[in-house]
Structure formats: C-alpha cells, structure tokens
C-alpha cells in the first residue's frame, strides 16, 4: 500500500509566524466588523421602513384622537415628576461645576450665561430624552413585546385593525408632542435649579444670575433644543416599538427587548445629537 505522502516540513520562521498571526487577527477583526455593521445596518433599515410606515398613517389620527390623548397622558404627563426632579438637579449640579471652574477667572455675571447655554442646547434635550428612553421606551418595548407574546397583535390584525395605526401611530405622535413640552419644562426648571444654588450657596445675586441668563440668550438655541427633542422623541418611541415587535417572547425575550430599546435609543440619541449640533452651529 502506498504510503501517505507527508508534507515537507516548513522550517520555523518567527517573522513569518508573527506576520501570519497579525494577518489572521486582522481578517477576523474585519469579518466581525463587517458582520456587526451589516447586522446594525439591516436593523436600522428595518426601523426606518417601520418609521415611514407609521408616518404614512398620520393622516388617520383624526379618526381616533383619544388614542393619542391617552398616550400623551402616559408618555408626557406621568413623566413630569421625574423630569422635574432630574431637571432641578441638573441645573444645580451644572451651576456648582461651572462655579468651580470659573471661580477666580470668570466674573459671576457669566455663570448664568454658561448655565443657560449648557441647559438649553445640551442637558435639557439630551438628558431628558435619555431618562425618558429608560422610562417610556422600555415600557413601550415591554408592552408591545408582551402583546406579541399573548397574540394580541395577531388579534388586532384578525379583527382588521391595523396595529401600526392603533398602537404605533398614537405613541409616536404622543412622543413628538410630549418630548418638546417636557424639554421646555426641563430647561426652565434646570435654570431654576441653577438659580437656587447660585443664590443660596454661591452668593450670586438674582439680578446678576438673570442678567447672565439673558446676556447671550438666543431664540435659535431654543429652536435647536426643540428640534432635538422632536428627533429624540421619535428615536425613543420608534426603538421601543421596534424592539417590542422583534422580541422573542417569554420573560427573557421581553426583558431583552426592553434593554435593547434603552441601549439603542441612548446610542442613537447621542449620535443624532452630534450631527444636529454639527449642522446647526
């Protein structure tokens, strides 16, 4: 019987081994990046298509306005206490930090100015939306995920009731309405929180603080803030609904859908924030 031919032994070459290892690692890294990117792009594409389909149903809102009102109460009004607390503290903390950095270099007059800019452009819309992603987005994901699990979505379809029209559209519209209102409230309360600290702890007079607030105040900033609020509202509600729809069912699936909705809306909010600021200023 013919002997199996052995491959000729390749002499060990450390340089080649190192280069081969680097090559293999690079390839593996490239493949995983490609897999992750294409997966994320697929999901983003699906979410955008879902958003377009929900927008397409907006003209039908007048047929069931009470559904949207219910959601405004759920998403907006009931979130108010949370927004009040976080906004007051954001303003207070921002004032303390600004004072720490300014003391001895920048006059107290600019304390109000810095707080107003920071609160209106950044902390108001971004932090409020991040907190609402945790409160509202996860609740929507869990609700839709459970409805899917319990066949309620199928039941809607079988009763010839379009789930996008009766579930998704009122929630999205309520988000678009509620987020800017909550952000405006958050902006105002953060400025109040800042004033409490400035006046109470830092010995800055009310007149100085208010003068600072008004010094470089621009309505354009408020417009950008509201624009951000609308975009972030859409992101939070859409991610909640999308991940609810994609949930695998069961306690674990619904939990994961909730978690994913919060993670993806947080990431998208910050990415979107970058682009809005980049193009707006």
């Amino acid at each position, binding site marked *: 019987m013919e002997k199996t031919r052995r491959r000729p032994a390749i002499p060990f070459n450390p340089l080649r081994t190192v280069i081969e290892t680097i090559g293999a690692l690079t390839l593996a890294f490239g493949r995983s990046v490609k897999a992750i990117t294409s997966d994320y792009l697929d999901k983003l594409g699906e979410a955008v298509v879902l958003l377009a389909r929900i927008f397409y149903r907006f003209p039908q809102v007048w047929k*069931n306005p009470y559904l949207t009102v219910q959601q405004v109460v759920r998403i907006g009004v009931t979130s108010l206490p949370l927004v009040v607390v976080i906004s007051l503290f954001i303003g207070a903390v921002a004032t303390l930090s600004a004072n720490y950095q300014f003391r001895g270099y920048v006059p107290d007059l600019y304390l109000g100015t810095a707080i107003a800019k920071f609160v209106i452009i950044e902390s108001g819309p971004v932090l409020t939306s991040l907190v609402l992603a945790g409160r509202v987005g996860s609740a929507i994901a869990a609700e839709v995920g*459970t*409805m899917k699990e*319990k*066949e*309620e979505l*199928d*039941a809607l*379809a*079988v*009763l*010839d*009731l379009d789930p996008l029209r009766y579930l998704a559209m009122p929630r999205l519209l309520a988000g678009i309405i509620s987020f800017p209102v909550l952000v405006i409230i958050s902006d105002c309360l953060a400025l109040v929180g800042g004033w409490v600290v400035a006046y109470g702890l830092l010995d800055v007079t009310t007149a100085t603080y208010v003068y600072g607030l008004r010094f470089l105040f621009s309505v354009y900033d408020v417009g950008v803030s509201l624009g951000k609020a609308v975009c972030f509202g859409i992101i939070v509600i859409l991610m909640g609904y999308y991940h609810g729809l994609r949930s695998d069912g069961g306690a674990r699936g619904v939990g994961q859908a909730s978690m994913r909705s919060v993670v993806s809306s947080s990431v998208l909010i910050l990415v979107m924030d970058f682009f809005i600021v980049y193009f707006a200023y």
Partner: protein
Amino acid sequence: MNDSEYLIELRHLQKSFGHQKVLRDVNLKIRRGETMVIIGSSGGGKSVILKHVIGLLQPDEGEMVFDGQVIGTKVTQDFKAVRKRMGMLFQGAALFDSMNVGENIKFALREHNKQLTENDLDLIMAETLHMINLSPDICFKMPSELSGGMKKRLGLARVIALKPEVILYDEPTTGLDPITSDVINDLILEMQSKLGVTSIVVTHDMVSAYKVADRMAMLLDGHIIFTGTPQDIRETTNPYVQQFIKGQRRLLSEVD
C-alpha cells in the same frame, strides 16, 4: 359569491421556519357550514395552518383559496376583502389587556361601523354576551380578573359580535377543566347551528374533537394523512391515526 361546495381550500401549502419544514404539502378543503377539526400532535403545525387561512402567515409554496378566489400565495396576500368575513379565537383568547371586557367587544365593532351609536354598541354587546351565556355585568371587569374559561368565552364573544362567516378556533379547550371544555364545545356547536358559520377547530383534545366535528383531518409530518367523519376516523386502519386517537405511545403495528 362562488357557489362551489367548498368555502376554503388549501392547495399544496408549504411553510418553513428557518431550517424547520413545518408544512410539507397540506391539501384541505372545507365545505360551507361544516365544522372541520384538525388533529395532530403538539408543535406539528396545526396552528400554522389556521394562521395561513386567516392571512397571518404567508405560504412558502401553495395557495389559500377562499370562496373561489386565490387570496394567499407566496407572492401576494390579499385578505383585505375577506378579513371581516373571518374571525379567530386564539389559544389564550388574546383579549386586549388594557381594555375592559366591554371595550374588548365593542372596539372593533365601533371602528368598522362608524354609524353605530354607543347605544347600538351596548345592545349588540348585551346580545353577544347573552349568546355565550354571560351576564352584561361582566363588561366592566378587566381581562386579568377573569378565569381561563371566561376569557375563552369572551374571546368568542368578540369574534361573533362582528358576525363572521368563518370562525377559526385555535385549541379552544386546552388548559380548561372537562366541564368548562364542554361549555366551549357546546358554544362551538351553537355557533354552527344558530349562526350557520363554517368552523375550523384545531385541537388535540379527542373528546372535544368527536363532539364538535362534522369532519376531521389529521396532520402528521407536514401532511394531511387522513380526512373523514368522526365515524371514519374511528374505523380507519391507518396505524398513525389509531395511535393518535387512542393516545398510544407506540404505533399499533409495532405493538403487534
């Protein structure tokens, strides 16, 4: 309306989920006004058949024909015109948790018949609840306060309030005690006799199947391996059917 004897036809239906082929070649015809019971083992694809009939799933191959018209193929799904002619009772009843019982019954009615006043809706609801032997007082309760059997009856009430021609029942007696199961069986029979509906019942509860069926079909490995009356199915020598209806662990031929 097509005057053919059959209202619903499934032709060479195939469906896979990932690599798992659930329906391999399902052919089934359902006559107008009859109750067809589909039996088969759990996880065998019985509910998948129902979901094809009502358009919740799209077949990979084959056709779903309703009243002479092809409405579901792997390319198109055109259930818009026939959706309101069909109703489905889900395994867990699928009542909307966020609404009370009354709203559950009235919601779809109100959306589809804008001319109905709240008074009309209340009347239809009371009539429907009477039909399933429940008092109208229940309409202010939330679904979470109800027992499994009660939920099933209300799921049925929600379906019949819309007066469909076809009712699909997905495991209507699963998880219920024998007496409540019998109540549901009687309701299925009443729907047929009083409203003249065509029904498809998916179940593995043989007591229920024998009681409600005009004809029965057995699904095995993605094929309909037997169709006939309850009498036929008792008398058949097909070992797989006998194994199922007698609840034996091993095939009859193996036992011999």
